[in-house]
């Protein structure tokens, strides 16, 4: 068990995932309009500021109480079980949408966030980032990851609260305002 194996390399998701990875209600972690549901949306941009039409995102998050859910049923949703995971391809205008809940802090005082994996044609390996909720400024100010970042880069990880109660989080793969992407190894 002590021998470390070398991981298999990733490869781009390519242009043709669209008939394979999406599925019915993939981006609906709960039914739109149900109590507590919010819209999480954003646009994925390339280095020239163009929205890219062929990216696909996955989110993975605790429930509104900060509990990490280990329930099956993300691919065939029963309409009642919150599994914490969803998948959403961007549309032709580069916008992705999820219906989900505000994640709760996993422990008192912790900053609440959604974990994200990003795949795209032209992206040779997946990228990870986090979407933090904007409200608890004290928790954000004490968050280990955020405090390790320059102030202007830190803001790339914090979602905007929309007037309808939803969240907007744009992803910039390259250039000005480039999103902070994470390496966990």
């Amino acid at each position, binding site marked *: *068990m*002590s*021998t*470390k194996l*070398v*991981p*298999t*390399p*990733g*490869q*781009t998701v*390519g*242009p*043709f*995932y*669209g*008939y*394979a990875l999406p599925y*019915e209600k993939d981006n609906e972690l709960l039914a739109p309009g149900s109590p507590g549901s919010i819209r999480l949306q954003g646009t994925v941009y*390339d*280095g*020239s500021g163009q929205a890219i039409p062929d990216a696909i995102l996955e989110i*993975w*998050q605790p429930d509104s109480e900060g*509990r*990490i*859910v*280990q*329930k*099956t*049923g*993300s*691919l*065939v949703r029963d309409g009642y079980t919150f*599994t*914490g995971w969803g998948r959403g391809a961007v549309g032709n205008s580069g916008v992705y949408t999820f219906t989900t809940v505000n994640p709760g802090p*996993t*422990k008192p005082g*912790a900053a609440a966030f959604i974990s994200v*994996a990003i*795949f795209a*044609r*032209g*992206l*040779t*390996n*997946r*990228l*990870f980032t986090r979407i933090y909720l904007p409200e608890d400024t004290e928790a954000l100010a004490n968050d280990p*990851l955020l405090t*390790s970042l320059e102030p202007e880069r830190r803001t790339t990880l914090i979602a905007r609260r929309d007037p309808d109660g939803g969240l907007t989080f744009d992803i910039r*793969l*390259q250039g000005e305002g*480039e*999103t*902070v*992407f*994470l*390496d*966990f190894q």
Partner: protein
Amino acid sequence: MPEDINAELESEELVPPAEPKAAHLPLDRAIETQADLSDEINAIGDAYARALKDGAEPETQPRLDYPPYRSSILRHPTKSLHHADPETIELYSPAFGHQDVHALESDLTIQHNGEPQGERIIVAGKVLDGNGRPVAGQLVEIWQANASGRYIHKRDQHPAPIDPNFTGIGRCITGPDGSYRFTTIKPGAYPWKNHLNAWRPAHIHFSLFGTEFTQRIITQMYFPGDQLFPLDPIYQTIVDQDARDRLVANYDHSLTEPEWALGYNWDIVLTGPKRTWTENEAFGTAGDSSEEAGE
């Protein structure tokens, strides 16, 4: 399942091909030949070989910045990835089980009324973590072109025949030993628009989850001995030969079934894990657990 797929294709708005046709490219791109691209690929390869000789650590993942793959030029982060210790949710993975995936979804040759064209194959192996432990009860998704190198995707405009008996999508849940197994058709090589006369080596896309979300990976499995390997900018985004070899399946006669299908073996190793495991988690779950993690 085939009906759903067709419905989705019908409802999808007509979209332009992901890359314009070569004949429509601006002249400066249209005249980029395989020789031009191979020069770039080889220059990067030579520089990497020199770096290795000078004591650099071998690279194990593709480069995000790999200009010969033209679509990556505006899509790679320019700042280095920020090292982070995974926390809370990142140390767990979504759970999938037999509610999510039907057992028949691992056979891509029985999704329609007739037999698909092409060479029937079995692709089987194990999903392991970096400690060699099996990743049990997890989701594996695959997708691929048909035997003539055509994807059932509107954006694929390669004038090769669509096979009405082959969609090219499969899923399974790994067994207690991390094993997966698909029955499918050997995909064909297909042309793309990276440069003039660009052809992808035959490959199957694989999507994998581990026990932690940090282990999430999408990759491509290739077939041994493909003559297109040195020419392909996507395969070559991995500059290290040992690392590239990890994407190439082995022909395995013990998986081959008499008068039925040729067998290929391919094991996948995920990174990590970072979380301290209990014996239960390592060997207990078969993918249908419904408890909540205690965080």
